[in-house]
């Protein structure tokens, strides 16, 4: 059974300030996948994600979304289908949480000068799913960093996309919310949402992603199911760190234990 390719990155190269950051990358994301992008700092993970959204324009290669070049899309149509959470979001103004999440509905709403409907029912549902209903009425500027990040994610989910692109969404969370958030994403994925997520934590990538893409210096080093990619040879080569890779006794997925220099 072959699934349809949703997003296809074809021979893409990108440079910024005369420095090539992405070298000739090919990557195909199929419908219903949960893809994790991993790699050391500066390996081009975020750039690749921002190219996939159409925000950054590569000087070579094409991005095809649902069979059509991403540059040919109207920006609002694109926003109906792809939701993206950038790595850093700053909030400047004290919106209340539900208004903030409601902004995610923007591309779906009729553009009318007189009537501004806001789908507050859907916003409420998203808040329930994300377990942030208790924040109703609070100002976003008063929230902790972790809480804020969950609100940002809720805004993306309220956008009701086919494809969800996330750049390190769980780095600000304690383990409870890391697991909880990834479980929520897993459920959304099961209901048909395709998810591409940049992660720093190799164990989280291993546990939740159906496929991982290991990047290094602007290229894809390896890609495939977690147990193929997350071997100690690959990790030691890319991260220059000694690790032991074991099998998680419950899930059967690989898990990675870094070993400090002092024991070697």
């Amino acid at each position, binding site marked *: 059974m072959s699934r349809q390719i949703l997003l296809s990155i074809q021979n893409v190269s990108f440079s910024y300030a005369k420095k090539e950051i992405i070298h000739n990358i090919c990557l195909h994301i199929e419908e219903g996948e949960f893809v994790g992008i991993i790699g050391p700092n500066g390996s081009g993970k975020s750039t690749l994600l921002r190219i996939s959204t159409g925000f950054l324009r590569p000087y070579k290669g094409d991005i095809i979304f649902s069979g059509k070049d991403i540059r040919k899309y109207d920006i609002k149509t694109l926003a109906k289908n792809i*939701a993206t959470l950038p790595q850093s979001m700053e*909030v400047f103004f004290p919106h209340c949480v539900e208004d903030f999440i409601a902004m995610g509905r923007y591309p779906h709403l009729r553009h009318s000068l007189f009537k501004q409907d806001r789908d507050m029912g859907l916003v409420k549902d998203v808040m329930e799913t994300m377990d942030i209903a208790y924040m109703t009425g609070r100002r976003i500027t008063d929230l902790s960093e972790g809480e804020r990040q969950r609100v940002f994610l809720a805004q993306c989910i309220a956008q009701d996309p086919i494809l969800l692109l996330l750049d390190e969404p769980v780095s600000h969370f304690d383990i409870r919310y890391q697991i909880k958030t990834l479980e929520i994403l897993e459920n959304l994925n099961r209901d048909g949402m395709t998810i591409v997520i940049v992660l720093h934590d190799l164990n989280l990538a291993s546990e939740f992603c159906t496929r991982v893409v290991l990047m290094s210096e602007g290229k894809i080093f390896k890609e495939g199911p977690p147990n193929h990619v997350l071997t100690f040879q690959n990790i030691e080569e890319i991260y220059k760190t000694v690790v032991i890779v074991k099998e998680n006794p419950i899930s059967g997925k690989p898990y990675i234990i870094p070993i400090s220099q002092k024991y070697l």
Partner: protein
Amino acid sequence: MKERYAIWRIRFIFIILILLLVCAVVLSIGYGKGINEIIRGLTEKEGFGFVLRKIRIPRTILALLIGGSLSICGASLQSILRNSLAEPYTLGISAGASLGITISVILGLNNQLGVFANPFMGFMGAMGSTSMVYILSRKKLFDPGAMVLFGIVVSLVFSSLVFLLFSLLDPDRMHGVILWLMGDLSSLENELIFFYIPAFLIPAFILFCFSRELDILSLGHEKAQYLGVKSQRAYKVFFILTSILTGLCVSAAGIIGFVGLIVPHILRMVLNTGNRYLLYASYIGGAAFLVFSDVFSRYILYPVELPVGVVTGIIGGVILLVLLIERP
């Protein structure tokens, strides 16, 4: 329960703003006289009725329009630049407008082209300075901090050009221009008010319609694009609208600073909602603030009338300082 509380909170704030506005208008129109006398005065042909119709009412209407316009300009510029220091004055839009109008006054365009020359030149000047800020910021990828800095630089340059022109002017004509530049609501030509009412209200109405885009732009231009707002095009639309409004304000009453900064700043703190309510509230609040300042400027040193720009500058500056220091 919480949602109902939020709605009532917003309603309460609006009721207070409207009450403030009504008080301001009554004070401004009938200073020293009660509402009964104002109503009786309106029916009189001579005396107090004449003063009302020809001087006080047009002046109050103008103050309402300018105060409201300046504060929605400030509110929307703050949202798109994500900086609470943005307003027409700090971004150089006012300075551009004043350069345009100074040129118009010096060349006597008023006499040659009619009463619309000043507002038009004000708009052109405002567009000139805004375009400069826009082009400079494009190189910095519309970084909000850089944009405000460019705004301040452009503002200083344009103000210097205005003073350069003043120094070439003969001293007799200078006095009037300087008074106008300091913010002066008294020199309104009465026939212009019928032009000003629609001219001020139409761009303001368009701004109100774009409140949702403003909310989204306040998340930064990258996120705005992910949500389906073309940020560059939106920037242009908002810059043109604010330039029109600022050009009108400056041509009608000179440079009035701080209104666009302080009114949205306070309202944003108490409202904590999106821009839809903020823009309406800013319009009402800004109008009330300017009318109060005008009343103050007329009567604090009676019979000497202070330029209203000086009053807003002092009151606004003090309030802003207190807020900045008090904030945790």
